[in-house]
């Protein structure tokens, strides 16, 4: 009798197509987002996350159609992140079928955005997304970055997580920029550090490359694991990961 570990395929979407790349660079086409979301739903995904990596407003508008088409056939929670800057933007995403929104750079620039969203839509609809990098000069040894990991700040990632929860974030999506795209496994130290300060669920992201990488992330304290390329390349199915987690004695759906 406990919550099941959640497996969350993440689809980076640009101009209506799924793209993939290492450390957000060298993006390549990886398919149709609605089709891929439906495939992962059939495989037993527990949630789907779309990350809008487009740069222009025109391209952003195609995201709404993707969200709506997905919500009409994929009956699991849908999170949309990437470029979320205002309460109005969140309202529009929800109206198009998003259950939760991920907020990243805009909250670093203006932390009050978090409480504005939480007050109107509830904390359960607000995911704080953190792109975290190891760096000296902070108490924890981790800083948050912006612009998909390209720009480091001097903000301590652990302190930022704590502040964001106080401001109303209902979940933390912790992406390790150091591990992202390496396929060498999740940053377990980072997950442990986040678990220690977080009263809300923690999603581990960045570094998944093998079926054996997932159980250690949960054992380090994550409530959910997020991955992208291992699914798009059809290296692993959601079912493969769930079998491995179950074999490690963890509860899955």
């Amino acid at each position: 009798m406990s919550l099941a570990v959640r497996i969350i395929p993440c689809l980076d979407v640009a101009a209506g197509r799924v793209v993939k790349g290492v450390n957000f660079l060298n993006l390549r086409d990886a398919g149709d987002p609605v089709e891929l979301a439906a495939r992962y739903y059939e495989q037993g995904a527990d949630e789907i996350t779309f990350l809008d990596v487009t740069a222009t407003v025109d391209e952003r508008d195609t995201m709404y159609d993707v969200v709506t088409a997905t919500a009409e056939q994929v009956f699991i929670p849908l999170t949309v992140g990437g470029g979320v800057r205002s309460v109005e933007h969140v309202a529009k995403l929800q109206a198009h079928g998003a259950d939760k929104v991920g907020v990243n750079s805009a909250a670093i620039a203006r932390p009050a955005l978090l409480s504005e969203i939480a007050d109107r839509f509830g904390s359960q609809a607000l995911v704080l997304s953190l792109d975290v990098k190891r760096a000296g000069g902070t108490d924890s040894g981790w800083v948050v970055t912006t612009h998909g990991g390209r720009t480091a700040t001097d903000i301590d990632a652990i302190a930022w997580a704590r502040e964001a929860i106080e401001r109303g974030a209902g979940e933390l999506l912790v992406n390790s920029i150091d591990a992202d795209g390496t396929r060498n496994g999740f940053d377990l130290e980072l997950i442990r550090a986040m678990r220690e300060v977080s009263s809300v669920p923690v999603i581990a992201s960045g570094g998944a490359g093998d079926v054996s990488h997932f159980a250690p992330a949960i054992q380090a304290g994550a409530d959910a694991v997020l991955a992208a390329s291992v699914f798009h390349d059809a290296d692993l199915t959601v079912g493969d990961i769930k079998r491995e987690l179950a074999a490690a004695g963890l509860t899955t759906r």
Partner: protein
Amino acid sequence: MAKPTVVVLDYGSGNVHSAVKALEVAGADVELTADRTAVLEADGLLVPGVGAFDAVMTALRDARGGELIDRRLAGGRPVLGICVGMQVLFDSGVERDAPAEGLSAWPGAVTQLTADVLPHMGWNTVEAPGDSVLFDGIENERFYFVHSYAAQEWTLDSQPPYPDPKLTWARHGTRFLAAVENGPLSATQFHPEKSGAAGIRLLANWIGSLRAS
């Protein structure tokens, strides 16, 4: 025979796309509206609800949702509340430590769960009674929850000759009501429209009960 008709009450509650589509997949003829005649005449009324208790109550009052729900129940016409749409059926909720008034279809308060990690977010098991209509044929399945508050007690006494309500419980830190089936009024704390195939089956069970009631 025509499909049962279901109205999803349109009063400005967050994401209702999936609720409409899930009900269609589950076999209903669905309309998203707050039109009084449509709401009163549908075979079933689904009341969604996400976000803060007080915000949901304010929006419901603006749409005269409480009155519409009362009118339907007085005529024995089925209503299904989901998530905060379930919570507002009780006497009161809590909003930033201040009490907020609910619709009082059922006695009792909605209070914060006591658990290490909140919100209670994800797929959990439930304990449904054997004679449940909603959970008929759905055993050992998990449903998607996302909430920090819940009704943690059931205080309505038996009212013969009416049958006793069917109570389904779940646990996250503390034990709480995951679903209630009380005559024409049913509710789930979890989101059936976000609970994959198991959730669709639950909605199909509810839709299947509409014409019979």
